[in-house]
């Protein structure tokens, strides 16, 4: 029983990780590097979008990602009774 529980917990955890890391990859390596030239065609105030992601946006997203992860994991710990 506890074995199944810890397996299920781990599976949920991995699923969260994959989703969050996909976003991590997309904003930095995606928007900031690979698609930079394409995104630079568009502007946001005085910023070209690709440049903005590389020097500003990706960092903001990183911070948000960690706090989302903290929230998700706290909930998950509670659900499986691992929060004690």
């Amino acid at each position, binding site marked *: 029983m506890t074995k199944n529980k*810890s397996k299920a*917990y*781990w599976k949920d*955890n991995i699923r969260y*990780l994959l989703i*969050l*890391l996909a976003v*991590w990859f997309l904003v*930095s*390596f995606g928007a*900031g*590097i*690979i698609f*930079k030239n394409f995104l*630079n065609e568009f502007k*946001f*105030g*005085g*910023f*070209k979008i690709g*440049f*903005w992601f*590389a*020097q*500003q946006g*990706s*960092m*903001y997203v*990183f*911070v948000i*990602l*960690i*706090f989302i*992860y*903290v929230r998700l*994991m*706290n909930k998950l*710990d509670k659900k499986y*009774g*691992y*929060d*004690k």
Partner: protein
Amino acid sequence: MVMINSILLVRELPVQTWTYILVGITFTLYIGIAIWSRAGSTKEFYVAGGGVSPLANGMATAADWMSAASFISMAGIISFAGYDGAVYLMGWTGGYVLLALLLAPYLRKFGKFTVPDFIGDRYYSNTARLVGVICALLVSFTYVAGQMRGVGLVFSRFLEVDINTGVIIGMLIVLFYAVLGGMKGITYTQVAQYCVLIFAFMVPAIFISIQMTGNPIPQLGFGSEVADGSGTFLMDKLDGLSTDLGFNEYTEGTKSLVDIFAITLALMVGTAGLPHVIVRFFTVKRVRDARKSAGIALLLIVILYSTAPAVAAFARTNMIETLSNQPYATVPEWFKKWETTGLITFIDKNKDGLIQYVADENQNELVVDNDIMVLANPEIAELPNWVIALVAAGALAAALSTAAGLLLVISASVSHDLIKKIINPKISEKNELVAARLSSIAAVCVAGYFGINPPGFVAATVALAFGLAAASFFPAIILGIFYKRMNKEGAIAGMIIGILTMLYYMLKYKLGWFDAVLPCKSEWWFGISPEGFGSVAMLLNFIVSITIMKFTPEPPKNVQIIVEQIRIPSGAGEATH
């Protein structure tokens, strides 16, 4: 009348006096904290007793992380590199996502004192532990030498002492609180140092942002229109100025896509593999605190890192406008002052008395060192003297906090991993603490020696410390947590081959040790620079580890059980031997 006089006096105090006042106050504060929070046990010495709050740990991690390089050099590098500077911004912040999601919670649950501790126990082998110790020492020493040099530079510039005297003053201060306070002393000093350094970085940035764009928030300011009423966006103006002088557009950069990709990845992964960063997460109470403090640390780091590119763009625009095509005879006072330090040089090649600052190296007459941008920025923008002095105090806080954190890793590697775990397991707690203090004294002396006699390659190798961490620790830790089947044979082979390949590439293509002349860029493997090669070496480590693992026996049952337990957050006891 007396009062008015004294206020005027304060306004006109010279930079020198202000520097003595601010540096004096902050140093007294650090030493006071160190005495108040000195360590009494090995547990307090290595992991601050394990009861640090997530907020305090986040602040300490941020100060630990932001070195003299982040504070002084980064904005300057971005200023000259334009878009390419993004590799440092994304690389040195993105690593925290990996740290928070893939490493910190599990290593905290594991509950040991050091990174080689994890490697040694998870891979049930003292050989693995020893490889871990060697990698940790290699990474930390390359890193700390640069910090001591940074301390010396700042002292020599702002207190007008000899650079070696500066290094020695820095050594004594660090020695005092690292030896006395251990991790506990360092943690609470770093909390104070974070406050000093962030304040010192933000104040001039906000002043300059208001001056140039009218917007007090630098992050928005550099996307705004310039304040001269022309309606041009600052970035467009800067792109224009850059192309006029023959440089690439500021928002374009010059590095190839594959190299940008590789460097960013190497820095991210290296960040997550640096022992002095990882060990900070051993100091909090619970697994959930480890996750949260990684988030807080990154938030606090991003405050500075998102401001740096704004400072870079302001400084670059300012510099081109103030100097380009201006007569040398009428340059501002700060130019002459920095010229005497050799950080700005001007050679009037065509003898017209004007400063030609252009991309073409044969015609360019002006060379400005990266480090000037942050240090001289307040002077260039004509800010009050106390702001200039504040920058000095901030730069010292940044350099000292990082140096102290690294010295702790070095001393723990020697006293705990080497003496206690390998040489003499029967050593008493009291003697281990003595050993820890002695090894931190030795480490400070070695670091100071490198600070005074920098081997030519120190500056070049600081960035490469990341490559070494990426090539050695990151794969071993990740596989140790996420791959139960990973055994000692695979991990040891992976770490050794990873770090040796990285060292080879670095010595060959960065330092030119194996050839008569430094090999040119076209010879780089896959077009990847030595700075970015950490990503290749990391991949190699993963491949070697997994391949060797397939042909060797699986780890013992009790180790597999440990791995299962690491994955569950509850019941994280306090860190133990």
